[in-house]
């Protein structure tokens, strides 16, 4: 389903080249649950951004569902993103002036889904994530855990088959973090592909397949239990 081959990502900082990813090869099958771990600055986020089509590699090839997406234009990428991929971020990235439900609705609004259908999905999501009585609250009136639940609901609103989460628990206390992980894992249980970047060994080891990345290179790919 996902096939990365010899991906290079190089940033230019002044005159210096920073190699965030060096020759990364990675295949992910539909319905897999991966964790990506590694020291800070090792290229985890860079990898996730490329997987999520937010960023383009300098070289290498990316196939998604059998289609080469390396050379797609911006608008085409946006469309693929909207339909296939859901993001969950460390800092939630909710729009502060919108209510919880408006934030959740946003991807559907962008996709041009009609309001009646939106409402229906919204109600389902609010119930699923226990946010019914918070629907009209703005992010600054919500706790971190609630914010992340809103963000997950938002990621799920377009019913994507791939969920990419970059340190989704990085800003939450342990218990809340566990709750959020449980929510994400439920998506996996429903057949979705889940990729989680984390610093936390314990959380990381919950994944069936654990990728270890150091200095832009994959140094470990452990599918054992």
């Amino acid at each position, binding site marked *: 389903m996902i096939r990365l081959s010899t991906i290079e990502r190089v940033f230019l900082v002044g005159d210096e080249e920073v190699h965030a990813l060096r020759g990364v090869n990675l295949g992910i099958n539909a319905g897999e649950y991966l964790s990506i771990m590694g020291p800070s600055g090792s290229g985890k*986020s860079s990898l996730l951004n490329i997987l999520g089509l*937010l960023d383009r590699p300098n070289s290498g090839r990316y196939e998604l569902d059998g289609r080469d997406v390396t050379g797609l234009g*911006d608008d085409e990428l946006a469309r693929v993103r909207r339909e296939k991929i859901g993001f969950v*971020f460390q*800092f939630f*990235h909710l*729009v502060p*002036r919108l209510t919880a439900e408006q934030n959740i609705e*946003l991807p559907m609004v*962008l996709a041009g889904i009609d309001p009646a259908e939106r409402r229906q999905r919204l109600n389902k999501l609010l119930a699923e994530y226990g946010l019914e009585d918070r629907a009209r609250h703005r992010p600054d009136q919500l706790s971190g855990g609630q914010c992340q639940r809103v963000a997950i609901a938002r990621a799920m609103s377009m019913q994507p088959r791939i969920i990419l989460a970059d340190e989704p628990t990085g800003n939450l206390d342990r218990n809340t973090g566990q709750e959020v992980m449980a929510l994400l894992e439920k998506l996996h249980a429903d057949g979705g592909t889940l990729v989680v970047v984390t610093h936390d060994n314990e959380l990381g080891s919950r994944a069936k397949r654990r990728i270890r990345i150091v200095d832009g290179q994959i140094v470990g790919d452990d599918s054992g239990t």
Partner: protein
Amino acid sequence: MRFADILNFAWQVVRGSRSRTALILLAMGIGVAAVVIVSSLGEGARRYVLDQFGSLGTNLLIVLPGRSETAGGAPGFIVGKTPRSITIDDAIALTRSHSVKRFAPLIIGTGDARWNSKNREVPVLGTTADYIQVRHMEMAQGHFLPEGDPHHAEPVCVVGMLVRRELFGAQEALGEWLRIGDRRFRVVGVLAPQGQSLGFNTDELVMVPLASAQALFNTDSLFRILVEAKGRERVPDAREDVLEIIKTRHEGERDITVITQDAVLATFDRILRALTLAVGGIAAISLGVAGILIMNVMLISVSQRRKEIGLLKAIGATSGEVKMIFFTEAVILALGGAVMGLLVGKLGQMAIGQLYPAIPFSPPWWALIAAPLTAIITSILLSVAPARRAAQLDPVQALSRR
């Protein structure tokens, strides 16, 4: 993304950042209002001047003997021989034209007016009953010269206010016999004070029937004919007809001059219109300033909302949609500002109208269209850059905390 959703999204932003919105509306409003008010002043001045002239009768044509090459120039400039005079029958013939409503022939001279022991040298105007309508004059007392055959010399006269006061003082003037030269005229009316107009002061006039004046001054030729056209738009037709009718009566010779009020008015009109346009244009500069403010505010907004833009892209917004969102926001602000400006401008114009009720202040239609349109167009053009900047933002960088 659906249009309604784009609108709604932009509207949320506009509503959410109150002080920013208020600032823009204010700047935009002031700009539009300035144009509306300033152009109202100009338009008011224009109408005021036109009305003043219009009270003379914009439908008026003045026919005088002798041909002048430049219509409206110095009258009586004679080419070749002495011109044939215009007679009362020439004047009567003018009523054949369908564009002529009425006319008043004029003979002017001076005479010695006497009543009892008092006497005074006065300008004497010989004319017909229609004169009062042609000139839109009012009577203070009695009635004007009687209707009837203009060849008939009835011994009656109408006096101006000044004459009345100087000759009769506190006594009743109506019915008294006034002696002018060797003839006697019974006073049948007193003109209301009119002031200066068309070169002479009617307050010091004595008016007598045309035939009487002809006898008094021993002449057949008319000084002028005042012709009233059936409407302002009929004036050119009336002019053609007058020239044509007199020409045939004068054996094919074009030996008269016709002056129209309109030619003079048109010049004034042009000047004042240009002036209004100029000051309106100057006021419109403030619209440019308001447009630049919108651009700045939008640019700030884009950098403040980097994360939001990054997020929108991450969840599937295309560059075009991001651009559209910011663009719509600017357009909403511009529209709001324009509407507000029109309201404020209208209020301001009404306020000034209260202060100077004599002058008909009202914004010209072009200002009501051009001011908001300029506001909207400048802000649309100027918000292209911020919107594009938002659209070009790299989502990864926008989302990172760096």
